[in-house]
């Protein structure tokens, strides 16, 4: 286990998001909140899985400490990406947070059934968005103990 952020090791966050505006907001909010968070971005589900499985051209992609996953994505949607992560022995331990504009009960129920670690609704206002990123940082990168990088011991 590592002490996230306190010993200079960057914490790797994978954001799976197709909206360039939301990518930018998330990047800026993380930059202001936690300078040791390193954000990688996949803009669709296929790219997300390629990064997670270290397929070319992502052979050197680091294993994320935390995944922020939108539900509605091109090529392969977030539900399928989530199912893949949580069905895979090597990937299932990575905390995967659903971050989506949808607040539909069916999306929440489905995501929880697929073992998303938590479900967050993306606010439309700038301040609320930044607050949410701060909350993610405060809980997941400060309070929670994340799994060791090398998976199960």
């Amino acid at each position, binding site marked *: 286990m590592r002490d996230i952020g306190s010993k200079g090791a960057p914490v790797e966050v994978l954001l799976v998001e197709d909206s360039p505006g939301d990518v930018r907001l998330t990047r800026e909010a993380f930059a202001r909140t936690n300078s040791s968070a390193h954000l990688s971005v996949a803009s669709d589900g296929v790219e997300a899985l390629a990064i997670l499985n270290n397929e070319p051209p992502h052979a050197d992609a680091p294993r994320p400490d935390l995944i922020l996953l939108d539900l509605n994505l091109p090529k392969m949607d977030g539900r399928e990406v989530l199912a893949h992560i*949580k069905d895979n022995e090597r990937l299932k331990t990575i905390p995967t947070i659903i971050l989506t504009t949808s607040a539909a009960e069916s999306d929440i129920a489905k995501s929880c059934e697929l073992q998303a670690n*938590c*479900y*967050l609704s993306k606010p439309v206002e700038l301040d609320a968005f930044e607050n949410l990123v701060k909350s993610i940082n405060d809980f997941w990168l400060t*309070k929670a103990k994340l799994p060791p990088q090398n998976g*199960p011991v």
Partner: protein
Amino acid sequence: MTDVLENESYTHVLLVEDSPGDIRLMQEAFRDASSSIRLHVTCDGVEAIAFLNREGAHANAPRPDIILLDLNLPNIDGREVLAHIKQNRNLKSIPTAILSISENPTDIATSYQLQANCYMAKPAEWDAFVTLVNSINDFWLNKVKLPARSFAASPALPGNLCTSKTPQTPRSDSRIERKL
């Protein structure tokens, strides 16, 4: 006795914890954090599963909105309780947070492998305990969208549970008095 409508509007937290001191701290910290939380306490793994399956004395137990689970418990330990929850079709969507004194990487990895929603180390100091409970309240009970209680909600809050307002079960009561 709480009426049905009032009970429905509460957030039900199930704490699975055998240490009377920690139970007391959690009750006080949650009471201070929010008046809309009902904290239910089961003191070992067997009782936790009975509560979740509404068996015996727990026939009217509400479906918890979130479970805070210690790892080291008498009878059935927390890992087994977690595996039971996450392998059960009706229970697996309930967010289950591990709250343990252990910071052992094996315990952390095993918990995530068993699909714990998150893992938190239980602090030893009261102030840090309060801060942790506040952050559980702020994040999990205010920011996170919890799944609907798809399982039928119970008709009423049973009177024999360790909630913050109703009396403790005789068992945990006597244990708390013995130790505190």
